[in-house]
């Protein structure tokens, strides 16, 4: 009797999780398992999309795939530079807004706009800006006499990567900013007052109060950004398509091509699995190195 009641209660309990569970199963659990299975199969044009057992050969191919390494390199460059810039800009601006106090909220609203806009659509805008003939960037630089002739930003690997990073920083630094502003607001005012009574300067306030309190917020924002930037797709796909010379092709973009253009589902699965594994590793490492220390009791 009591046992039966327990079962009924467990069923009722499960009911609460059912809608979420179904959605997550369909869109996370099954797809991940399916990808795992696919990565051990050849399912491609050559096999007529019929699954053929491949063993580890997809992964073997990956080891010697220079394009994979290239895309990994491009991804790493993109992630490190853009997240670093976003962090520096976000922190500087968060501290600056704190100085301004009253008008801070208004600026925060304005700065939230870039973050809210769809990347795929904004990428079109940037593509226009960087156009060598009609682009605003060249127009401005020409007028300021910084350059003599129009520069084809998206036609050179370095400047194309720089353009992508610029666009990403533009869009994503407000996120870092907002998290850090929240962090600054959470610092008890008394801390500063105590330090002031003790004769601390602005630098001391930053060094002994702001920074230590802000660290967990910084870590959260940076880890979020690193992981998101690692999976970057929209921006690169629309802005450069991976070019020129494949120098801006990130792993997500390469994987997308492998699936939808080359129709190589087995190999594509191996690719995305490696991406997911890598991200898990990075996420876990960052988490244990930086965040776990701050979790309990904070």
């Amino acid at each position, binding site marked *: 009797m009591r046992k039966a009641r327990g079962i009924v209660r467990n069923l009722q309990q499960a009911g609460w999780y059912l809608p979420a569970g179904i959605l997550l199963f369909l869109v996370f659990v099954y797809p991940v398992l399916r990808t795992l299975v696919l990565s051990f199969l050849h399912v491609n044009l050559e096999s007529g999309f019929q699954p053929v057992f491949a063993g580890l050969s997809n992964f073997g191919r990956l080891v010697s795939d220079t394009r994979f390494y290239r895309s990994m390199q491009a991804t790493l460059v993109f992630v490190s530079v853009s997240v670093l810039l976003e962090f520096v800009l976000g922190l500087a601006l968060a501290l600056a807004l704190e100085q301004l106090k009253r008008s801070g909220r208004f600026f925060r609203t304005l700065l939230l706009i870039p973050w809210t806009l769809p990347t795929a659509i904004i990428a079109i*805008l940037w593509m*226009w800006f960087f156009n060598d003939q009609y682009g605003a960037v060249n127009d401005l630089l020409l007028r300021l006499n910084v350059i003599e002739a129009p520069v084809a930003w998206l036609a050179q690997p370095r400047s194309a990567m720089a353009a992508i990073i610029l666009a990403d920083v533009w869009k994503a630094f407000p996120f870092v900013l907002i998290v850090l502003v929240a962090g600054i607001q959470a610092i008890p005012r008394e801390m500063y007052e105590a330090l002031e009574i003790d004769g601390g300067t602005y630098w001391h306030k930053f060094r002994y109060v702001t920074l230590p309190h802000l660290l967990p917020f910084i870590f959260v924002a940076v880890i979020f950004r690193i992981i998101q930037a690692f*999976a970057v797709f929209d921006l690169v796909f629309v802005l450069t398509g991976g070019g020129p010379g494949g120098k801006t092709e990130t792993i997500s973009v390469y994987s997308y091509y492998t699936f939808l253009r080359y129709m190589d589902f087995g190999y594509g699965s191996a690719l*995305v699995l490696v991406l997911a594994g890598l991200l898990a590793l990075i996420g876990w490492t960052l988490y244990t190195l930086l965040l776990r220390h701050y979790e309990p009791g904070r």
Partner: protein
Amino acid sequence: MNRAVRIFVFLICVWSLIPVVWCGLASLKSSEELARIPATLLPADFTLQHYIELFTRRPFAAYYINSLVVSSLSAFLCVAAAGLASYRLARSPKRFRSAVSSSLLVMAFFPPIVLLFPVYEIIRMFGLVNQPWGLILPYAALNLPFATWLLTGYMELIPYELEEAAAVDGLGPFAIFRRIVAPLAMPAMTSAFLLVFIFSWNEFMFALTFMNLESARTLTAGMATLSGAFSQEIPWGLLAAGVMASTIPLILAVFVFQRKIVAGLTAGGIKE
């Protein structure tokens, strides 16, 4: 010092807004003016031609409706499912809760490209390709971990005694959720709804892949097919008008719901 800070903040604001403002102005210029070198700043001959063209020559109205329908429904479905789950989660033992939270975290950080193809297979199996539900369900699910996470944090703050009071008052478990917990969690649910709406509105990869009929596209995918990335004629004016038309709802949302969006973002970012 203060002056320098002001100038710095001002410059950053300019840099954040200029692309959008520039685009807004450009969308009002005639095609001839846009092709002029060097470019003009303010529209010399003001025209709404590009906007008209957007809605007449292109199925932009359809993109718009699709985006609205898909984003609203996925946000609604997501918040509803996340609301139910997070309520129970907030009331379950800490060990279970933190185990679930960590797995949600892992899912929230999952690169969407990993899921793209298998999800496509499922959508295909259910015959939802080119159907709004082919995007609504994946979007709701993709944002579910984030929404659950955000809501659980909030639900934990709702006093348990309220639910006990409601139970004594005569409410069953679901009625407690519907009449007491959900109304109280409304602020967080609104934040979650707005954020999921924005994420869905902005999603590109799934929209591009799952919706291959013109009439089924959402704004992001529709715009990309108008775009120069795929284009030979490069219709700058049309693009500028498209960018403006598809982003204005979001810009308005930022101004109206700034506080809610920030609350959701920071809660989502800081919790645990």
